[in-house]
């Protein structure tokens, strides 16, 4: 199967060719040249994208993304075309994300008809999420879904690396209901080593999503020997806290995969330590999906500590909220309940 190319937005003329303005690499492309993402190219006088397509149509709980404070228990239709702007060495999804870089990642996506996708989601009462690979590269498809999705009340969600130009973000953010942004490390050297990309645009995008009113959650893969020291975790926690105490932070367990076959799996004690550091930095909602049991998935009221929202593994179980507020003390629990 080969990619089918469609006209892309997010470009402008450049003295040396056409400049792609979607991600901060801002590739300047000559005719027939493909960008660093491997899924956008210049063809003649226009920029084209291969991502008006999807390799999957998975229906899952929203907790899988993970999004814990946005419509808990909602079901999500996940779409993903191959491709990513990052080349993360530990990527567990490399067979889809590392298209063009890894021989194991082949093109297996079929074209998407936006109206059909939205009709299906509306009929089944699903949100639509872009996940697994990089949603930024599906910005055109996201925008194509948006009018009908808005008309039918279907929320659009991204699980993204946040590597997007400010101009592109400002076009896409108004159609997104919620995003979960991966923040892997905040140290520039480590970030480049891990992802082959700078971290500053990610931090900028997180701030811009928040400013734009998109519901924001952040995920961090805890990687042994990379970001699991007390100082690295505290640095990350301070960075997350800077976006607001009420931004949920998900600490993800990682295991050896792709080019990090020697990685040691994240120990539950490390995740517990990371969670304690996050709380000490003042972050209200810190989550660990599995390794710390049900307690790791529970939302506690930041004022009185009562268990306000309880979850199973990748599922919503129950809440005691009253119009989004703690039933015991009345404190508002941030989120879209």
């Amino acid at each position, binding site marked *: 199967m080969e990619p089918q190319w469609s006209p892309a937005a997010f470009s402008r003329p450049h003295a040396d060719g056409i400049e792609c303005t979607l991600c901060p690499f801002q590739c300047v492309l000559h005719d027939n040249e493909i960008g660093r993402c491997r899924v956008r190219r210049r063809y003649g006088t226009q920029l084209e994208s291969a991502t008006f397509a999807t*390799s*999957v149509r*998975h*229906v*899952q709980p929203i907790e*899988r*993304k993970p999004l814990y404070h946005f419509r808990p228990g909602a079901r999500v239709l*996940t779409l*993903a075309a191959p491709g990513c702007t990052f080349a993360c060495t530990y990527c*567990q*999804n490399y*067979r*889809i994300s590392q298209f063009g870089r890894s021989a*194991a990642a082949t093109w297996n996506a079929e074209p998407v008809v936006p109206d059909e996708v939205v009709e299906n989601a509306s009929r089944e009462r699903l949100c639509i999420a872009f*996940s*697994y690979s990089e949603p930024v590269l599906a910005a055109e498809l996201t925008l194509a879904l948006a009018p009908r999705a808005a008309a039918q009340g279907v929320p659009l969600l991204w*699980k993204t690396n946040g590597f997007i130009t400010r101009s592109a973000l400002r076009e896409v953010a108004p159609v997104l209901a919620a995003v979960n942004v991966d923040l892997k490390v905040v140290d520039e050297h480590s970030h480049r080593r891990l992802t082959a990309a700078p971290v500053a645009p990610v931090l900028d995008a997180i701030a811009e999503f928040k400013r734009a009113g998109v519901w924001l959650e952040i995920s961090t893969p805890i990687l042994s020997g990379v970001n699991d020291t007390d100082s690295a975790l505290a640095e990350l926690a301070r960075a997350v806290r800077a976006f607001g105490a009420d931004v949920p932070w998900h600490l993800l*367990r990682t*295991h*050896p*995969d792709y080019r990090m*076959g020697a990685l*040691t*799996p994240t*120990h*539950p*004690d490390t995740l517990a330590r990371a969670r304690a550091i996050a709380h000490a930095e003042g972050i209200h909602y810190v989550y660990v999906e*599995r*390794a*710390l*049991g049900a307690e790791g998935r529970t939302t506690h009221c930041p004022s009185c500590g009562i268990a306000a929202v309880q979850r199973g*593994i*990748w599922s919503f179980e129950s809440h005691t909220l009253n119009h989004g507020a703690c039933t015991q003390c009345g404190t508002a629990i941030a989120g879209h309940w």
Partner: protein
Amino acid sequence: MSEPRFVPSLPDLIEPHEYASDPGGRRVRVRIRLTPEGVEVLGDAVRPAELEKLLETLGAQVIEQMLCG
């Protein structure tokens, strides 16, 4: 060479309470059963590459796997 197929979910065979007792992630667990379609091998491992090698050795034509996120 097996063909990977992405699926929305698969059952767990390794439970979270077992993570701490296997810090190196060496545990592999498999369940083999006969289904109307043939022999089904379900595997769970912290090191997916090792599990895939095992399944390929067993002759799997398709290996279903979940994605992260």
